[in-house]
């Protein structure tokens, strides 16, 4: 398929909102029949939480990712158009990218596929980050945690969120399949239209709609495909599944989802501004969008995401039915906390200071869901569920504290009863939760060039043979 600067239309197929969440094969086949110029999907997000970037695990099971990837790879090779997959492995760190590349090579071998593969990494080197920090080129967004050299040293992984330029470099190199680390979801879809000179406002807005697959339909039944026609002064969006409808309202509403500001969306190279966007139904299933603008930024910035180990966790779930305990639950948990700290000190002595571990008690039936945001102060429930968490430097210490919590909570007395009470009901004993992580960066970095943080490697893949192309 010829792609050139004089094109008047780019067609785009998004098989699904996240690789691994699935899509209907019938929708995908219909999408392919509409002759897209490329197929794009992300494979990650911060939404499942910091442990994926931190640990390298994936939020969707490998088998589910493999299923989606196999269909996308065979489909893209069948019609010979590029396949762009960003934020590999949920967090988009180096290990997660390499795991997905292994999967791609495995599928190529099984299916006998041949293609040029570009791999773009997004994991950031500690020394590079420290240098940019010293130069004052890492600045906070709002709200942001503290970020200094110690944060960099503590981090399990820090990734940069790439813009369109690293994708465009891979496309220009003739890549058929691109597997990238952390990327702006929209950049995956905007890269080719922007490269081909389509207006950036139109390209980025289309990208924003397509990056979530069928989520912008009136009623998405299951994760599924979305299709767009990008033209010089508008784009049209329609779901390949004939039972899915897009309306001006559903497409306009989509810019609200998971964005703090529904009109201004920040990217590396500028801001997508939807203030003047207009939405028009062109059938009962398709919508035309015009008027979206892209305002170039004065300085190019790359958002950083990082995760660090908090510790290892042991948890205990218990419940309380005694109205005497329920009516004094805050006082009871305060007394319990003191008892636990005292007992931990008896067991560990100077080996473990109170600041070395974290004790957290969640009270469901009171404010377990909303915590400090909960406006309701009186407890109306006849029972409460409590989750106790011990987070410590090792799993062994966490388990020990978990055992202490259970024993102390079981028998903590209240003034209304005399004699030994059993204060909580536990369906099971304390459980290991393993390593827990936290996000530790909400900053942007100003690089010298849009690609310096995102090195690319090219491979020739042919069935079970593959070889790095030295450039």
């Amino acid at each position, binding site marked *: 398929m010829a792609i050139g600067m004089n094109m008047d239309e780019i067609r785009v197929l998004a098989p699904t909102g996240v690789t691994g969440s699935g899509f209907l094969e019938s929708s995908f086949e219909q999408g392919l029949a509409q002759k897209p110029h490329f197929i794009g999907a992300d494979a990650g997000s911060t939404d499942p*939480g*910091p442990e994926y970037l931190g640990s390298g695990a994936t939020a969707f099971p490998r088998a589910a990712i493999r299923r989606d990837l196999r269909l996308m790879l065979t489909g893209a090779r069948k019609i010979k158009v590029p396949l762009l997959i960003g934020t590999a492995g949920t967090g988009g760190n180096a290990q997660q990218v390499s795991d997905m590349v292994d999967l791609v090579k495995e599928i190529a071998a099984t299916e006998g596929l041949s293609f040029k593969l570009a791999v773009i990494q997004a994991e950031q080197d500690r020394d590079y980050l420290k240098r940019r920090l010293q130069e004052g080129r890492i600045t906070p967004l709002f709200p942001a945690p503290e970020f200094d050299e110690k944060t960099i040293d503590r981090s399990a992984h820090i990734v940069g969120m790439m813009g369109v330029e690293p994708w465009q470099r891979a496309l220009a190199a003739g890549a058929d399949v691109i597997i990238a680390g952390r990327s702006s979801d929209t950049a995956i879809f905007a890269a080719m239209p922007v490269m081909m000179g389509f207006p950036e406002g139109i390209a980025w807005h289309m990208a924003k709609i397509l990056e979530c697959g069928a989520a912008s339909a009136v009623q998405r039944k299951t994760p599924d495909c979305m299709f767009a026609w990008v033209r010089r002064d508008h784009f049209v969006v329609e779901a390949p599944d004939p039972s899915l409808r897009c309306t*001006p309202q559903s497409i306009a509403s989509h810019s609200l989802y*998971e964005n703090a500001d*529904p*009109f201004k969306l920040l990217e590396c190279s500028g801001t997508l501004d939807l203030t003047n966007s207009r*939405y028009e139904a062109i059938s009962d299933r398709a919508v035309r969008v015009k008027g979206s603008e892209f305002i170039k930024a004065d300085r190019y910035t790359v958002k950083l995401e990082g995760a660090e180990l908090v510790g290892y966790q042991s948890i205990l779930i218990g419940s309380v039915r005694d109205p005497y305990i329920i009516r004094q639950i805050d006082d009871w948990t305060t007394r319990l906390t003191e008892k636990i700290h005292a007992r931990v000190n008896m067991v560990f002595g100077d080996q473990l200071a109170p600041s070395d571990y974290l004790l*957290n008690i969640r009270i469901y039936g009171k404010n377990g869901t909303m915590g400090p945001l909960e406006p309701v102060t009186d407890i109306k429930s006849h029972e409460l569920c409590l989750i106790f968490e011990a987070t410590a430097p090792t799993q062994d210490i966490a388990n020990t504290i978990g055992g202490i919590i259970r024993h102390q909570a079981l028998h903590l007395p209240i003034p209304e009863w005399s004699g030994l009470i059993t204060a909580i009901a536990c369906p099971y004993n304390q459980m290991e939760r393993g390593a827990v992580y936290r*996000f530790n960066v*909400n900053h942007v970095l100003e690089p010298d060039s849009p690609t310096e943080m995102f090195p690319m490697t090219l491979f020739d893949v042919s069935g079970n043979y593959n070889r790095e192309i030295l450039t």
Partner: protein
Amino acid sequence: MTQLAELARLIRSKNAGPFELTFDIMFDDDETYQRVKNSGALSREVVAQCYRLPVDAVKFFYCDHAYAIKASIPRPYFQGDPRDSDGHGGQQYAPLMSIEVL
């Protein structure tokens, strides 16, 4: 007086990245949307009051094309932090449901 939950087709909350929470109050049609918008029942100040935040901590938007009103606030704990109770931020909207609209 009618409660906001009876007028909206969907009231939802969600993470807007790991550091902010966002609320979408969405209506079926322009008429209901305009009724709520013009009533003044839902404002930056009301959202701030609901979540006991200073007014300038709340971002607030009218989205005419989507027939929706939107507000965003900083998270009390960052997503996934040891004391965070709602990893996806999906169950933080309940206090908005009972806002009275004229």
